C-alpha cells in the first residue's frame, strides 16, 4: 500500500490533523499534484505491484481535476480508494458516485456533530447517502469523552457500509496537533468495547486503524471484541505517503523523521525497508515504559503502539561536564571531594 497526496489543501480544520508538521515544513509549494506527477505516481504503484490508488490530501476531492485523476487510475486498472472528509465538490462526488462498487471505496472521516457544526454534518451525511455502500465512515478519537453513539445513527440513516473505522488521534512529532495520550488508552478502550457491543447489536462492525495496543483492553474485553467480529489489530508500519514533491514519508505524523526520494527505481518494498531500518533504534521502546519488557512486543505481536508517540518519548537535554586536567592525569575527581 502507498497513499498518494494529490491536494495540500483542506476545507476543514480538524484540531487533531496529522499532517500539521508536514505542511508547516513544506508550505508555499504546489497545492495540487499535476497530471504528469500523478502518472509518475501510478508508475510507482505499477512498479511496486500495487493495484490500489489511495488518494489523500489535504482533502483529495478538492483537486480541480479529481475526476480526471480517477479516470487515469482506473485506466491503469487500479481500485480507487479515497480518504475524504466528506465535504466534496459536486464533480468529485458525482465521479465517485458513478464508479462501479468494486472499483471504488471512500473512507469518510467524521467528527462529532457538535465539533463539526450542524450544516457541515448534514453535508457529510448527504455525501454518505449518495455514496451508499462505497462509503465507510471513520472517526479519529481525539478526546476521551467523545460520544461514539451518533455513528450508529449515521450508518443507519445514510445507508453507507455497516462498518465503522476507528482511529486514535496520534501526535505529530512536534505535538502541535490535538492527540490522545497513551495513558488515556485504557479509558478509550473501555468506551470502544461498550460502543462495539452496541454497534454489533445494530449489525455494524468496528475496524481499527493503526496504533492501537492490546493492553488498552482488558482480557475479557479483548475476547468480547473478537466475538463481536471487530477487526482488532495492533499495527504501526510505514504505509508510505507520497507527498506533492515526490518524496516518500513513513506516515504524516512522522514526516519530520525524514523523506526518501521517489526515484525512477524506487518501489514500495524498498522504501518501506529503508524506513524500517531508519526507525529501528526507536523501536526498542514503545508508547509505554512497560513496552520494552512486554512479551507481546518481544514476539512481534504488538509493535508497541504508534511510533510517533514512541519517538516523542525520546528527548534531548543539553548538558556538559568539566573535568580538570589534573584529574584526568590520575588525580581522581573524587579526591577533590574531601
Amino acid at each position: 500500500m502507498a497513499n498518494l497526496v494529490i491536494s495540500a489543501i483542506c476545507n476543514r480544520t480538524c484540531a487533531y490533523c496529522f499532517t500539521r508538521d508536514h505542511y508547516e515544513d513544506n508550505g508555499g509549494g504546489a497545492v495540487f499534484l499535476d497530471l504528469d506527477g500523478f502518472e509518475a505516481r501510478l508508475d510507482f504503484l505499477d512498479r511496486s505491484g500495487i493495484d490500489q490508488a489511495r488518494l489523500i490530501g489535504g482533502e483529495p476531492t478538492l483537486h480541480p481535476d479529481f475526476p480526471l485523476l480517477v479516470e487515469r487510475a482506473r485506466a491503469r486498472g487500479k481500485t480507487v480508494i479515497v480518504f475524504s472528509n466528506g465535504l466534496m465538490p459536486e464533480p468529485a462526488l458525482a465521479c465517485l458516485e458513478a464508479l462501479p462498487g468494486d472499483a471504488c471505496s471512500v473512507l469518510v472521516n467524521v467528527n462529532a456533530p457538535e465539533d463539526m457544526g450542524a450544516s457541515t454534518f448534514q453535508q457529510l451525511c448527504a455525501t454518505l447517502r449518495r455514496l451508499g455502500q462505497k462509503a465507510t465512515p471513520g472517526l479519529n478519537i481525539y478526546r476521551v469523552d467523545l460520544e461514539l453513539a451518533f455513528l450508529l445513527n449515521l450508518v443507519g440513516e445514510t445507508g453507507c457500509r455497516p462498518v465503522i473505522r476507528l482511529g486514535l488521534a496520534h501526535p505529530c512529532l512536534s505535538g502541535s496537533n490535538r492527540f490522545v495520550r497513551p495513558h488515556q488508552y485504557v479509558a478509550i478502550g473501555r468506551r470502544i468495547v461498550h460502543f462495539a457491543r452496541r454497534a454489533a447489536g445494530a449489525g455494524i462492525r468496528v475496524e481499527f486503524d493503526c496504533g492501537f495496543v492490546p493492553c488498552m483492553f482488558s482480557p475479557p474485553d479483548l475476547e468480547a471484541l473478537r466475538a463481536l467480529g471487530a477487526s482488532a489489530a495492533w499495527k504501526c508500519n510505514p504505509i508510505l505517503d507520497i507527498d506533492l514533491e515526490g518524496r516518500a514519508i513513513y506516515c504524516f505524523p512522522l514526516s519530520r523523521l525524514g523523506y526518501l526520494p521517489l526515484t525512477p527505481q524506487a518501489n514500495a518494498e524498498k522504501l518501506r525497508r529503508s524506513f524500517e531500518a531508519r526507525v529501528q533504534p526507536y523501536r526498542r521502546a514503545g508508547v509505554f515504559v512497560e513496552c520494552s519488557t512486554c512479551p507481546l512486543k518481544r514476539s512481534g505481536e504488538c509493535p508497541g503502539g504508534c511510533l510517533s508517540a514512541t519517538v516523542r518519548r525520546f528527548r534531548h537535554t543539553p548538558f556538559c561536564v568539566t573535568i580538570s586536567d589534573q584529574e584526568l592525569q590520575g588525580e581522581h575527581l573524587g579526591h577533590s571531594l574531601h
Partner: protein
Amino acid sequence: MTRYRCVPSLVWVQDAGRVLLVDQETLQAWTLEGAEAAAWDLLALGYPAERVVAMLALLLDVPAGQAASFLEGRLAAWLEVGMLQEGK
C-alpha cells in the same frame, strides 16, 4: 580543563530501568544500564562531576577514587563512540 558536551543530535529515554539513546543524525543506538545509566542521568540533570562521583561511590559502594575512575572511564567511552564531544 576538559569539557565534554552531549552531542546535540542525541536523544534518549528512560525505559524500564535502562537508558535508550539514539543519535538522530547517524541513527546509532546505545543502551545504558545500572551505574552507567545512573551516571548519564545525573550528568543530564546538571550535577557537577564531583557530586556525580559522590553519588556513584555510594551507589557502587566503592571509595570515591574508584567511583571517579569509573566516571572517567565512562566519559572516555562515550566520547569515543560519539555520545559526547569535547567542547567549550
